[in-house]
């Protein structure tokens, strides 16, 4: 006799059968939209701020590492860089100003910006996607994003490097596209919060050393 427990626990199994005809791909969105709580916690822009950060983002994963599965489904992103860029540049309301650049000319753009704006606080920030994956953990799932952040000055000299990791562990209902996107959104939200804090700290530190 079927008990309620069996029905509940058997639900994912039924989903497996029902999704036999479902698409074998999970498509990730290409645009990050900050949640309402993120907007609320942001510090308002301080006009006239002097810390300018020329930011570039690139995918540093190997071709093999880009391939990703979740259960039997392929996880695909048409434009992961666009998604990350929309996330990183949503940070612009913080204590620094981000300026977009392509990875190939980011250092030159930083130098040019420093000369034209006569700003001592002009940094180059190179963000690289190192890992991005989602896995099943018994009845849960975990989405992880790891990025490296390299800060250098206008001359290209390193100021600091850090790794930032965002991870979301939640119940895996049916391994669907919506919940997969939601898990990655949550992971990126954590990554962005850490980048925000890191850049703000570096800008403060430079400002403090300039006033000495």
């Amino acid at each position, binding site marked *: 006799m079927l008990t309620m427990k069996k029905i509940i626990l058997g639900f994912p199994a039924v989903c497996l059968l029902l999704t036999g005809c479902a698409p074998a791909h999970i498509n990730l969105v290409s645009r990050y939209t900050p949640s309402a709580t993120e907007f609320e916690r942001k510090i308002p822009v301080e006009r006239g701020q002097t810390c300018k950060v020329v930011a570039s983002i690139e995918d540093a994963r190997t071709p093999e590492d880009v391939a990703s599965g979740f259960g039997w489904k392929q996880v695909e992103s048409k434009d992961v860089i666009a998604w990350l860029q929309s996330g990183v540049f949503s940070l612009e309301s913080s204590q620094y100003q981000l300026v977009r650049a392509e990875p190939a000319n980011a250092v030159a753009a930083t130098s040019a910006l420093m000369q034209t704006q006569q700003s001592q606080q002009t940094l180059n920030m190179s963000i690289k996607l190192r*890992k991005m994956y989602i896995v*099943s953990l018994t009845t849960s799932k975990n989405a992880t994003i790891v990025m490296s952040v390299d800060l250098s000055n206008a001359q290209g000299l390193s100021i600091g490097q850090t790794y930032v990791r965002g991870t979301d562990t939640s119940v895996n209902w049916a391994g669907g596209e919506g919940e997969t996107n939601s898990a990655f959104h949550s992971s990126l939200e954590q990554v962005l919060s850490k980048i925000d804090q890191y850049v703000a700290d570096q800008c403060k530190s430079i400002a403090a050393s300039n006033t000495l």
Partner: protein
Amino acid sequence: MKNYFAILSLSLLYACASPIYKPFPIEAGSKIKNSDVVLGVAQKEIIGEILPAGPAGGGILGAIIEVSINASRATAAEAAIVPVRDQLLNFNAEEHLQGAVKRLVMPISWVGNGSLALSKIVTVAEYDKRLTASEKNAVLILTVAYSLSPDFKNVKVYCTANLFPNTDELRKMQFDLYRSNSTINQADAIKTSMFNALYHNTLTYSKPLDVTVTDLNGAAAAWAANNGSKVNAALNEGVEAIVAMLALDLQTQNNLSAPGKKVEGKVESYQVTVAGQSLDVVRSEKGTMSATGKN
């Protein structure tokens, strides 16, 4: 039912690992001129294993409690494992594995001029595609996973190895040996199902932590200490050990070497050399092989 999710997850991770042992048929050696080798590693970082929750009473409440316990354990494990993962950001398991396979498996005579390919997609569909595309006599598919045990006190490396025939002669040999469950003659069957393997085994390496710890965070900190020296050493040894065990298994006659017949063997011991050190290997009575790293 409580093991349903564990089995499901492990099957996805380990590509339907099975305790059934199919020894390499010695007579196949002369019939295989060359073989492609596919190395399947799905994971991007070390896995923190989760012990699925036991029964938490009947009814919907019990089921909800069970799922909640699993979620809680998963969350705790994923948070605790971060220091270990951070120390392994530059650890390239695939590179180590490919190096070991090139040294220990590719020189086997029946591999011949076969190629070695890495697959980050570990599904039967992907494996079927690779078997179909191969122009060699056989395809050896190795699915590897590495993890911390549920209490984080052991580093584990697993390998499920399957050799699939790719000529009519070898397919006939496979069918004759395993006709009771072989689906090799069915056009719509999964080609890389373990039922259609000419050789199959599961190889496991385990390395215990050499310090006393009381919880997941303590164990993770111990593995991650000194720039992750302990976890790096264990994974390097584990990768070498499973490939060394595989090479040994593919070339050694043992008391279970009776393809196609159910033989209850006895436990056997071997030794493999890993990084110049001798490592004890045990073959269980069912044929699977395991090694434990020394401290």
